[in-house]
């Protein structure tokens, strides 16, 4: 990488800026880095162009994130995260396959490419079980199936969706985790910490976007090892790892390639954006 501490040029690529992007931008500037904000919705990205020393990929759209990273990589720019990491994280089938391959615990999962195979797959599950598509976030289309009538409706509804990926099912054992899951943030090789995301009454999903409340989670060696391995599997430079607790162990459920961290900051007091800025500075100096 080129550039020095005095002339570090960082590009932050985004589509719809959230609090996270604004915090990262502010912290980068605090460390005297020159920040270029690129809205990918209105700025064309030229293949082979080297726009900065490092590009932070922060779009809400998963495909825009993959493409933006790939284009910047074509010009030799170091990307956080890189396009392969974002793809691996963005598609839960790819994530879970990689996680399983290295021997980490995941909820027992079966992939069904359509309605017929999903009907066949569900016979091996005790109710309730979880059904979700491979792409998407914030709990969208993630359903806890406890009733055969509801299951049939879900199958019919998903068949009506135009996206091929949304017609694919991941069926999973339901890990009943006291109405909460765990989120950890990893920056570089450092696990910054972990939080519980505690579901609100009447909601079984634990996404902050659905109103779950963040709470501090004490780290333990088994948890830390699972988090580090999961981040390594996707070659993540800045990722969040979501895990479930059950039967006295941890199950890796998701890895996020463009992580949100409002709830994490609220529960831990850790300034994630500052950690990202320091990581960027250290990477450029290498």
């Amino acid at each position: 990488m080129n550039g020095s501490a005095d002339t570090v040029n960082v590009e932050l690529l985004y589509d719809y800026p959230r609090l996270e992007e604004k915090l990262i931008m502010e912290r980068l500037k605090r460390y005297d880095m020159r920040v270029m904000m690129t809205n990918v919705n209105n700025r064309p990205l030229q293949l082979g162009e080297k726009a900065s020393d490092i590009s932070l990929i922060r779009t809400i759209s998963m495909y825009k994130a993959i493409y933006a990273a790939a284009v910047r990589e074509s010009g030799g720019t170091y990307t956080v995260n890189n396009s392969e990491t974002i793809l691996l994280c963005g598609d839960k089938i790819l994530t879970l396959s990689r996680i399983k391959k290295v021997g980490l615990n995941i909820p027992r999962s079966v992939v069904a490419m359509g309605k017929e195979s999903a009907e066949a797959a569900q016979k091996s599950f005790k109710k309730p079980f979880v059904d979700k598509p491979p792409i998407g976030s914030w709990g969208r289309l993630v359903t806890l199936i406890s009733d055969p009538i509801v299951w049939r409706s879900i199958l019919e509804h998903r068949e009506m969706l135009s996206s091929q990926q949304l017609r694919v099912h991941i069926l999973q054992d339901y890990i009943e985790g006291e109405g909460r899951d765990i989120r950890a943030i990893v920056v570089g090789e450092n696990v910054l910490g972990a939080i519980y995301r505690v579901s609100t009454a009447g909601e079984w999903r634990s996404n902050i976007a659905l109103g779950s409340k963040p709470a501090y989670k004490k780290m333990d060696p088994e948890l830390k090892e699972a988090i580090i391995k999961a981040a390594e599997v996707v070659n993540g430079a800045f990722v969040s790892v979501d895990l479930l607790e059950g039967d006295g162990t941890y199950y890796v459920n998701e890895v996020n390639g463009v992580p949100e961290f409002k709830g994490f900051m609220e529960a831990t007091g850790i300034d994630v954006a500052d950690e990202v800025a320091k990581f960027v500075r250290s990477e450029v100096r290498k």
Partner: protein
Amino acid sequence: MVKLICPLCSSTVEIPDDALDGELFEHDACGAQVEVYVEEGKKKLRLAEGISEDWGE
């Protein structure tokens, strides 16, 4: 704060001075989800697109 026109109800929306191109806001008065965009150096508002299937983190 910058005063802009809501594209849905045409009343005034107050947006922070440091709002970024692409930033989303909800207009409390009418409930519209609006997006800041820049045209000829000036900030304006348009209706935001709905959540897409690949949106998230």
